[in-house]
């Protein structure tokens, strides 16, 4: 497939999906759509028309179609999340890990300030690809504020100043305890 075909296909998809119809709703069940996708039951004329006239049902169709394709390569990574789990023990927070254990946030106190270090576990299945491609990464707290944004160095680390007045432990408590490491997509 050449680039023009791909571009044209993208355009046609967008034209189909960008429409909005007042009072649009799901016109066909997943069962009917999946049966049409795997060829076990063909759509009737009326069902076909209902699908084509309902951008929302088309969006559902797209989801189901995409779900049938083999999963992306296993070194794909779309983001990892973690949480401050322990109750406040009075001690300063030294570090956090994502739930998949592939990322760590370290907090280093320097006078009345803090440094924040993001570390990628070299054993993570996607480590090779991330170090090779060096995508822009972002760490966001539970309230949506950006804690860190940058690209990993060759050691799989990124370091910056802690951007808030309050200490990391307190900050995470105040903002829903959660955090997410994810690639920035534009």
């Amino acid at each position: 497939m050449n680039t023009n075909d791909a571009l044209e296909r993208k355009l046609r998809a967008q034209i189909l999906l960008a429409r909005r119809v007042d009072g649009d709703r799901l016109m066909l069940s997943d069962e009917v759509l999946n049966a049409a996708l795997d060829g076990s039951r063909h759509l009737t004329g009326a069902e076909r028309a209902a699908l084509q006239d309902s951008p929302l049902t088309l969006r559902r169709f797209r989801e189901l179609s995409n779900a049938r394709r083999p999963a992306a390569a296993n070194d794909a990574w779309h983001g990892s999340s973690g949480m401050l789990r322990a109750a406040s023990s009075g001690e300063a927070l030294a570090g956090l890990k994502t739930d998949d254990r592939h990322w760590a946030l370290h907090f280093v106190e320097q006078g009345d300030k803090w440094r924040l270090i993001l570390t990628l576990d070299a054993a993570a299945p996607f480590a090779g690809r991330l170090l090779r491609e060096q995508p822009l990464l972002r760490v966001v707290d539970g309230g949506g504020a950006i804690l860190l944004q940058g690209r990993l160095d060759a050691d799989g680390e990124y370091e910056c100043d802690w951007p808030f007045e309050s200490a990391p432990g307190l900050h995470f408590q105040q903002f829903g305890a959660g955090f997410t490491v994810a690639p920035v997509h534009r």
Partner: protein
Amino acid sequence: MRLPGTRYQEHGWEQVRKMLGHCSLLAFVQCPPAELLDGAAAGRALDMYVDLTGEALREAGSRLRAEQAGNSYGDSVQELAMSLLYELQARPADWSAFCGAVAAEHARSGAFWEGPAGDAILRKKVNDMYAVLRDKVDSDNYQAACGRTCSPNKMYAYRMLDTAYGEIASLFGAWQQHAAQVAAILGRELAGAAQPIETRQLTSIASCRPEWIIRWSESLERFGDGAGPLHTRSKRFSSLKNSEEKIGTMLREIGDYEELSSNRDQDWLQDAGDAALWLEDLWRVCEAPEGDGPDQILPALEEEFPEEAPAPVPLFDSALASAVSLPPRYMELAWAAQNRAGVLEAQSLPVRLAVYLKMLGPADDSYPAEWLDPETGELPTMQQLAGLDQVSLPTLRKRRDLAIAALLAAAP
């Protein structure tokens, strides 16, 4: 709150809303609201509004707030604002509703956008439009993502439950300071100084019990600022009020998805190359021989969370007001000025005013200015009120006295 597919339901929404409000006001400098008053012109103004607001959003994009993430999927505030703006372009009905609101305000108070509070009023109307739009967009996103039916009102109901959980969790967290309300929520007496076990067990919205939500809403009359969301007179949540099962299902759904989406890979990053591969499936499905049926098209479901239609503004005949030497728009303005008809709800506006006239006199500090006859600075006379109500003076007196008697009978 996160649900499958939704993008506009987290804390960052506040920033998105502010940014859209700010940039819309900038757009209205060049695309004056006067353009929105007439139906056909209003339709044309949409494109101009979208262009100007989009430009303002792009310029604002270089500032910090815009770069911030507006949700935990990593969409920035600016990206979210921009895509909501483009949604508006595809939904002219929402734009006309907004233009209708501007026109109604204009009918009440003229070119309000030029007045001192003009920006605030305009911004409020913009906010209202996007508040409706975000729930429409997210209920569509939800349906496309998981194949279950949803509506904008149901999205609002999910959010109400999520907020309720947040309130309950914070009350539980400070149970000692809120012992009475916590007891009301738990539906039992607290045993002295011991921490109630439930307050320690509540770790996520999935472990929040539906009966707590109902009792919390009930408790607001006593502990908060009036009736809770499940206990107002509005019908909006009436399908939840008596259904712990339904509340429980929705709470668990929010909780389960929150856990899933924070632990598993997220689907936002599709490989650009195969973004349109599904089209081949669509062509294949649509070119296949037609099936024999029977048709299995889903029926439209009844709205589970009906929206209360706002009380319609009655049409008033301005000739009636002029006939009794009141300003032509007296009735309309006086009607709009009463915040709630309250105990006199069943009565017409002139009868209500007649009741006030008799009980509190022609001039009282608490009367809204719109009720007063600008000639006298007092309520209209009984004669004028009778003219407004198109009844004879004795009939108005009789209705007034009946209304007062009814009030007396209803008094505790």
